[in-house]
């Protein structure tokens, strides 16, 4: 008949350990307890006397169990020997800690093991195949020496590892074993465990593993491969590790999750999680024969680790402020910046909103105010339209805007009139789609009724700013999708250009655009540019415009509002 014996390693929360021990013993499992040598004598004695009413609970001699050192293995070995010797009826040994909590009645565990005779449940994988590394050490934990503590002597630890790497020091792995590692918590059959403990070569292995880093995750995992006819490489203890290699902790609010996981034992339980201890150590429901299914818990913890290591793309906040190029997404979603379109088309904003369904703003970086869609005074996230607030940190402004509206594409206008601080940020953002009609800023000047000397000066200023901006867009760091047309190029075939941009925004090419935005009347624009030239200012960004009335590919009748193809 199957009988599980429990080896329990205890170092804190002794009252909880006692509760769990009672639960094991109640179901007929003998328990050998190892109490960390760091626990002081008074607490140890109190603990021993607290469980003294149970004859099936015995104590093995105490070792100092510092994380990642041999002490834990030595303690496990001795306690295992003791339980095999003192309780001949034990068929399986279950290694548990004081913060492990049985989630299902022990009888179910017995049945489960009885159905799988001679199977050893121990997670055991070769180092080459798993990404479990702490401190950048995987295979090296078997080939270097680790005399210093990782927790308390980190500098020495790192220095010594580095030194060994430099001098190419390598320990020899004893013949016949292939290093494996895996969860510290296992359930082995008497046959396998005794074979490991009684191996004539054990002194060799022990000597070797004493200097291996974190031997508790590799000693039994490696040696069981030598003797077990049937290794089932998974642990019956649900135990998840985060990216620093420390176990995730379970709290009261995990109760339902743990219930549904159908795992036999879970680790690590927060000692103050009263609800969990009450629920699982109390009277149990009827027996089920379910297979452990920790999938949902796995996903929750994997997500947590992902949040800690990769975070949410495009989020900048009090506890996430990535260095440049480490953002994993400069902003959180795609957005579009249009330059020169509102200058060239009278109704570009409503037209674009209709054609794409995106949120279309005016010049967000205009010096007078932030031109949110519909010229609202605040926008999503309570962003203010105050230009000073925006200019105080334009980078935060844009990132916030895109973050606040995640799920909805933002389009906005930009031009040489606007605050230019964001040029480089936008250019290196793969989420940005930038469409530029260069030189279109001249159109409002052309339409305005200002003195020519002012116009000339203004034109020169805007041209200087825009050419600098274009430099950013053409730089080698640029990751945005940039399209730049000169104004002359663009008006030759505006529909084609608009179609490309709109297709990219809507992500499909289902319909041809049937309605074009209304282009401003450019009669005389060529002459206007020529006048600027005559004044010694050379407008080059708009491309070559003939002095004659502007030639589009289709002659426009003055009264016709739409280009319909």
């Amino acid at each position, binding site marked *: 008949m199957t009988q599980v014996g429990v080896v329990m390693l205890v170092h804190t929360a002794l009252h909880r350990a006692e509760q769990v021990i009672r639960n094991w013993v109640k179901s007929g499992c003998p328990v050998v307890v190892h109490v960390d040598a760091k626990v002081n004598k008074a607490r140890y004695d109190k603990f021993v006397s607290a469980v003294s009413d149970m004859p099936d609970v015995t104590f093995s001699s105490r070792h100092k169990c510092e994380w990642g050192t041999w002490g834990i293995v030595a303690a496990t070995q001795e306690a295992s020997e003791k339980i095999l010797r003192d309780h001949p009826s034990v068929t399986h040994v279950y290694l548990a800690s004081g913060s492990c909590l049985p989630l299902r009645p022990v009888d179910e565990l017995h049945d489960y093991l009885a159905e799988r005779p001679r199977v050893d449940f121990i997670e055991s994988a070769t180092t080459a195949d798993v990404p479990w590394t702490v401190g950048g050490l995987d295979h090296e934990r078997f080939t270097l020496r680790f005399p210093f503590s990782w927790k308390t002597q980190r500098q020495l630890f790192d220095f010594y590892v580095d030194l060994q790497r430099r001098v190419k020091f390598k320990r020899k792995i004893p013949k016949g074993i292939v290093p494996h590692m895996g969860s510290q918590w296992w359930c082995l059959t008497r046959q396998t465990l005794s074979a490991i403990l009684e191996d004539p070569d054990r002194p060799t292995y022990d000597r070797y593993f004493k200097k291996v880093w974190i031997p508790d995750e590799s000693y039994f995992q490696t040696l069981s491969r030598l003797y077990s006819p049937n290794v089932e490489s998974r642990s019956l203890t649900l135990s998840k590790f985060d990216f620093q290699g420390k176990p995730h902790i379970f709290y009261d609010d995990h109760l339902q999750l743990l219930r549904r996981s159908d795992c036999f034992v879970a680790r690590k339980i927060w000692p103050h999680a009263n609800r969990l201890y009450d629920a699982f150590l109390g009277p149990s429901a009827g027996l089920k024969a379910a297979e452990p299914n920790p999938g949902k818990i796995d996903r929750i913890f994997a997500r*947590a680790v992902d949040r800690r290591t990769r975070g949410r793309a495009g989020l900048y906040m009090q506890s996430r402020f990535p260095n440049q190029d480490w953002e994993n997404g400069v902003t959180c979603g795609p957005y579009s910046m249009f330059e020169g379109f509102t200058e060239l088309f009278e109704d570009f904003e409503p037209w674009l909103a209709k054609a794409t369904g995106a949120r279309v703003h005016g010049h967000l970086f205009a010096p007078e105010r932030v031109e949110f869609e519909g010229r609202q005074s605040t926008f999503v996230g309570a962003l203010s339209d105050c230009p000073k607030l925006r200019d105080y940190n334009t980078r935060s402004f844009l990132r916030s805007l895109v973050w606040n509206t995640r799920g909805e594409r933002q389009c906005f206008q930009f031009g040489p009139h606007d605050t230019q601080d964001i040029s480089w940020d936008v250019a290196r953002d793969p989420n940005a789609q930038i469409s530029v009609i260069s030189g279109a800023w001249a159109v409002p000047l052309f339409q305005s009724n200002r003195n020519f000397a002012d116009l000339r000066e203004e034109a020169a200023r805007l041209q200087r700013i825009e050419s600098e901006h274009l430099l950013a867009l053409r730089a080698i760091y640029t990751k945005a999708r940039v399209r730049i047309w000169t104004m002359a190029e663009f008006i030759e075939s505006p529909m084609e250009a608009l179609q490309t941009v709109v297709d990219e925004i809507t992500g499909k090419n289902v319909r041809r655009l049937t309605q074009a935005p209304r282009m401003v009347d450019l009669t005389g624009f060529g002459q206007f540019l020529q006048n600027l030239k005559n004044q010694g200012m050379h407008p080059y960004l708009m491309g070559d415009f003939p002095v004659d009335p502007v030639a589009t590919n289709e002659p426009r009748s003055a009264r016709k509002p739409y280009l319909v193809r």
Partner: protein
Amino acid sequence: MGLWRSYRLRVQRRRWLVRALRKRHELTPIADRTSQIRKSDILLVSTLRNEDVRLPYFLKYYRDLGVNHFLMIDNDSDDGGREYLADQSDVSLWSTGKSYKRSRFGIDWVNWLLMRYGHGHWTLVVDPDELFVFPFCDTRPIRALTDWLDASSIKSFSAMLLDMYPKGPISAIPYRRGDDPLEIANWFDSGNYAIQRNPSFGNLWIQGGPRARAFFQDNPERAPALNKVPLVKWDRRYAYVSSTHMLLPRGLNLVYDEWGGEKASGILLHTKFLDTLTVKAHEEIARKQHYAASHEYKAYVAGLQDNTDLWCKWSEKYINWRQLEILGLMSKGNWA
């Protein structure tokens, strides 16, 4: 960081500690129950003046979170709050009539109490109008958080100040003693914060929210800082530098991840904008005891006179910490 700068910061830290030592004479114990403090207790330190109306809810809120002992500094209250506090069995109270401003807005006093009683404890430094929210705070006590921080070798925990405000004029609904201020001030700005790094102390400098939006449109650089590190596993060598915005040694300010990940963080719900502010703002201006020539309070008075409504159509209504997490104002990090 160069040796020289590192040395300069060390000297600065010593200076704040010496200053805290010197300022300890300004504190008179009213009710000293510090002998009750056990080794693992979580302590709360707070400086206040005429906050009697807030105290019952404040104490209840933090007792429910699992704070074990309150170390309170009363700066010359005359509204009965001192007597009320002195009667509480888990409060140790000191009183001072000395200048709030000259003690660097109370932080010298706080540094002293932390040095004297905080060593080795998790300590939470908050104002009476700040309510601490952390991941899972609806299902786990604060000790769950501090135990997890201990296990993760994290020594300081960030909680950004989030200004809460009512819908409608601030003085429209009176706040009554013992009430939950979040029932009145339950709106906030979800995404208008400007963040930059402070190179000398390594902390983030966060500004924005309704105060920047309503009161500091013309000089946003003067808008109050919102970054705070209120929860620290204290060591007697630590010192708060400027309010709880930053600490020395500067490693404690590294509460944010720089390589793309998110560290766990919380929020301090700032319930300043209640009807009680109107009286307070006038009083504080008269006392001239606040930061930057009480600039902030002057802005409030100017803004409050015409019944400013901080609420706008994009304001977000507060539900719980999960909402703040989804909005990206705080994070669970790898705590699950």
